[in-house]
């Protein structure tokens, strides 16, 4: 291993050594996780799952682990009646609001451990994929784990988790959230990342266990500053007749990588993963979605729309794997992409791997520009070019937006998108 590659690992090791004494109760788990990260290292140029995304800039950074006592940020208004704030990965009761909805129970790592919860689940290192290394790093460095349990049969009111960092200070944070939805429950959870323009790494892990006949709806909004490196592993395991539904909106960060995985492990489990990303300015957004069909009668939908402008760049890799024995499964994938300016780029790659013979699978990917005939039509009715481009771009995004069944979240996404579009269309030469 060359010195250049070893160097960032040495820095992270020093960071780990600095915090490990504070985690005596989980020392063995964390040490093993750190060694997994050290062994995998940063992705190299030949790593297929990082083909279009270079982490060289991140590798060069030496972020300190954030001190959780540092100045709290100003948070935007909550999108649900109850908010749980995690600042640099640590739960902050003083920034949380509302009462926890009935049917939900929130514990921190120490409490969960004292209750006999398995550390293996709480500090799980994900297996495989491009972000395994960062999931392991998170398990080593996360200051806490938030464990949310949804009681059997509960139909819980919406809840927001807001993830932020100490104001104006560069650093790295490793938030970790575990959601367990018991049999027959329904829950709606907003996962919202906000931040300012300080340079930082946010390395997040969200583990979701969906029980039999349970439904977990996740509303994810990435709206951090343009100097944030954001890496996230969001992984759901879905039991019989359970469903995970993800509404994803990526409108922030400077460089972001999301691995969104759903494992449909029992018959008739379902995953609906839809989203929207906007790579404007010099933003680089890389989304890898993977669904594993591991049982009969499982169903999945992936529907992502991407927009790139300026020097923005986006990567979308959608993969469905129908494993042996997962007969009568359905896997549908759509990736549609819009380039608003000539310098922008979107690389999209739908992938299907099928090892069963009685399945219904489809996939499609398109990348194009705004329709010139439609633009002229709108302008011939008196709309300015900016208004016309904005209307058509919003219409493009609207196909995914219209799926969002949470009014507060939909409004927040729409407002953020409108503001961003107004800015980028008006600044266009």
């Amino acid at each position, binding site marked *: 291993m060359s010195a250049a590659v070893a160097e960032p690992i040495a820095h992270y090791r020093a960071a780990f050594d600095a915090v490990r004494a504070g985690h005596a109760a989980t020392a063995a788990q964390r040490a093993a996780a750190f060694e997994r990260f050290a062994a995998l290292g940063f992705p190299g140029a030949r790593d297929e799952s990082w083909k279009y995304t270079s982490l060289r800039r991140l590798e060069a950074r030496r972020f300190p682990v954030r001190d959780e006592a540092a100045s709290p940020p100003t948070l935007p208004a909550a999108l649900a009646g109850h908010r749980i704030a995690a600042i640099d990965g640590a739960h902050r009761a003083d920034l949380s609001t509302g009462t926890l909805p009935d049917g939900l129970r929130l514990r921190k790592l120490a409490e969960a451990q004292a209750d006999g919860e398995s550390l293996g689940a709480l500090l799980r290192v994900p297996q495989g994929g491009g972000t395994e290394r960062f999931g392991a790093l998170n398990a080593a460095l996360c200051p806490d784990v938030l464990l949310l349990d949804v009681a059997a049969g509960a139909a819980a009111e919406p809840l927001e988790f807001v993830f932020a960092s100490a104001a104006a200070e560069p650093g790295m944070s490793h938030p970790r959230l575990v959601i367990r939805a018991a049999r027959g429950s329904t829950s709606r959870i907003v996962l919202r990342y906000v931040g300012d323009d300080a340079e930082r790494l946010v390395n997040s892990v969200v583990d979701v266990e969906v029980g039999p006949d349970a439904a977990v709806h996740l509303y994810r909004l990435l709206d951090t500053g343009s100097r944030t490196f954001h890496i996230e592993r969001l992984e759901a395991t879905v039991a019989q007749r359970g469903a995970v539904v993800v509404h994803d909106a990526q409108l922030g960060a400077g460089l972001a990588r999301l691995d969104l995985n759903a494992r449909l492990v029992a018959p008739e489990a379902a995953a609906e993963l839809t989203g929207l990303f906007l790579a404007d300015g010099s933003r680089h957004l890389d989304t890898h979605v993977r669904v594993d069909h591991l049982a009969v009668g499982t169903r999945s939908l992936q529907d992502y729309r991407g927009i790139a402008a300026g020097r923005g760049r986006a990567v979308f890799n959608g993969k469905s794997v129908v494993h042996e024995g997962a007969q009568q499964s359905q896997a549908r994938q759509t990736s549609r992409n819009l380039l608003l300016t000539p310098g922008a780029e979107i690389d999209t790659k739908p992938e299907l791997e099928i090892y069963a013979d009685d399945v219904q699978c489809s996939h499609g990917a398109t990348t194009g520009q705004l329709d010139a005939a*439609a633009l*002229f039509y709108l*302008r*011939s*009715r*008196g709309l300015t070019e900016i208004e016309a481009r904005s209307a058509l771009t919003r219409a*493009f995004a609207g196909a995914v937006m219209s799926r969002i069944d949470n009014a507060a979240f939909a409004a927040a996404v729409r407002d953020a998108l409108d503001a961003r579009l107004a800015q980028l269309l008006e600044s266009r030469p």
Partner: protein
Amino acid sequence: MLSIRDLHAQIGARKILKGINLEVGAGEVHAIMGPNGSGKSTLTSVLAGREGYEVTAGKVEYLGQDLLAMEPEDRARAGVFLAFQYPVEIPGVNNAYLLKAALNAVRRQRGLPELDAFEFLAMVREKMQLMQMDESFLNRGVNEGFSGGEKKRNEILQMAVLEPKLALLDETDSGLDIDALRVVANGVNSLRGADRAIVLVTHYQRLLDYIEPDVVHVLSDGRILKSGDKSLALELERRGYDWVRQEARVA
């Protein structure tokens, strides 16, 4: 109102308009007829400002302004309206949104206050009745999933709402059955007025049974070969276009 002098236009190297001269005054209805490929649609496209056409010579004056120097949206705001031959479907852009945005753009230009949602709806409802369109059209995407006839009605609805000074109708009659043709013609006739000019481009005389033109022009191979009153349209229907071309060659 509209004065076209020696207009030449081409797409790439292909010359399509080869010296059009046309004067349209306020209150007049002109019909431009001609065989396929004669340049009818190119003329309306150039007047509305569609990209892809190169004007190589000539001038177009509209209410004293150099029309060709204006952006398409500025032409629209100044009162020029093109009813498209093939109205484009725009899923996700709401019909009501477009009507309202277009109307308020025109009203701002005219120094009028914008209409609020209530006034707008009352006004649009009235025009929709005239066009025999169901209100549900308002909440659909622009022309999305509309039949050919519905698209043409929607064009005339927009025109009725925007009340242009100069309306250009590009083959608005094509693809319409007789009932739809009557509705569309009715909509156009409702807009006839002393301060408004209408230029109809059509292939067939049929539309002119319902919208009586003041002047009929024959366009062929990029030039206006002959102009006359409405009896010229009937003669064209009976005798075709060849005799006009022959006459022009002899002259």
